[in-house]
């Protein structure tokens, strides 16, 4: 067991965790924040993407113990009063079908917009499609997901 402390969505959390507990298990099963999804559990689908110290990571491929001391943001933490511009854009553009991949799409979308803005690069459609390489939508609704991220990129 390891004793961990971290900040999740601005709130200090912690406890003793099994050394083989994944970050996504800590988020979903210990903290009961079930907006972060487990799709493939093999690091490919991106449904479990959260931000650790401001960077998108696959929470099924990181140990909870390795996030000791980190600042973690999950899908539950992105809205601030109203919807986050990325959430609103997914709503406006119907950027989902079944919705299972949506939390990961939104977390990856926010991450890519933040990175491109910081580097002063243009996030055009081709760039969005390339950046979404690690997020899989099995309804194959990519077109509206790309439109959603494109809209949010202009508003963030």
């Amino acid at each position, binding site marked *: 067991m390891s004793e961990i402390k971290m900040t999740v969505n601005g709130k200090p959390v912690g406890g003793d965790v099994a*050394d083989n507990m*994944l970050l996504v298990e800590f988020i979903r099963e210990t903290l009961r924040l079930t907006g972060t999804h487990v799709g493939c559990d*093999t690091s490919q689908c991106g449904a479990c993407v959260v931000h*650790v110290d401001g960077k*998108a990571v*696959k929470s099924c491929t990181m140990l909870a113990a*390795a996030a000791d001391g980190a600042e973690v943001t999950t899908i539950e933490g992105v809205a601030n009063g109203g919807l986050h511009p990325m959430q609103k854009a997914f709503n406006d553009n119907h950027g989902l079908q079944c919705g299972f991949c949506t939390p990961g799409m939104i977390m990856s979308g926010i991450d890519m917009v933040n990175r491109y803005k910081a580097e002063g690069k243009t996030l055009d459609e081709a760039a969005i499609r390339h950046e979404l390489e690690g*997020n899989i939508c099995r309804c194959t609704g990519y077109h509206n997901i790309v439109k959603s991220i494109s809209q949010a990129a202009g508003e963030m």
Partner: protein
Amino acid sequence: MHSTNYHAAITAAEAASLLSSAEDGALLAGGQTLLPTMKARLAAPSDLVDISRAEELRGISITDGAATIGAMTTHAEVAGHAALRSAFPALCDLAGRIGDPAVRHRGTIGGSLANNDPAACYPAAVLGTGAIISTNTRDIAADDYFQGLFATALDAGEVITSITFPIPRAANYQKFAQPASRFALVGVFVAQFAEGVRVAVTGASEEGVFRWTDAETSLSSDFTADAIGGLSVRSQGMISDLHGDGSYRANLVQVLTARAVAAAS
């Protein structure tokens, strides 16, 4: 995942010490290969020694014709490093095409090299430039380091600390991505130095990353795609699987080498 004991080390020396006292310990870098392997129960180390937050193993410095990258530097940090990009853009481009953005935020150059996956990208850059792999005990030349599939010159308990790349005049990496895994079905790294050209191939051979010495000889006297037009690679010993048979991969080696030479900068 089987149970394991987690330890965090903040220096290479501490990591080596923790490893030596573990029954069957493994270093945990970014974990982007090791954790999926453990989840699939293909690996079950008794102890994990996490070195991903060892500050002394992070960072990029460029001096005197060489770039030194700390072993725990992530792919995203290599891809996004402005000074490295102006000195050695081919290495930044290679790092920026490993996995996907989230994987690049965790995965590290040291982890990739210690694992030596036969389809990984970094081994091609390391062998293709003749880089030096520094560990807590010694420096290892790239030509001595890679010893077949998932096999390296590292001793048990040895910790990679940094990798030093000689900066080529021109270089390029061409990756033909396997469409599902995004690993290299074949990847070719070409680097031109004052003393000659090096060509390293990943993804293709059953022996792991290798140098295509025939192409090196031709390109050292004439650094153009035409110079290797008449060369071919034997399909014997090439990986054959449902994504491509040995002759397909052998042909890709020639095609990608020509593209890399044409695109080298």
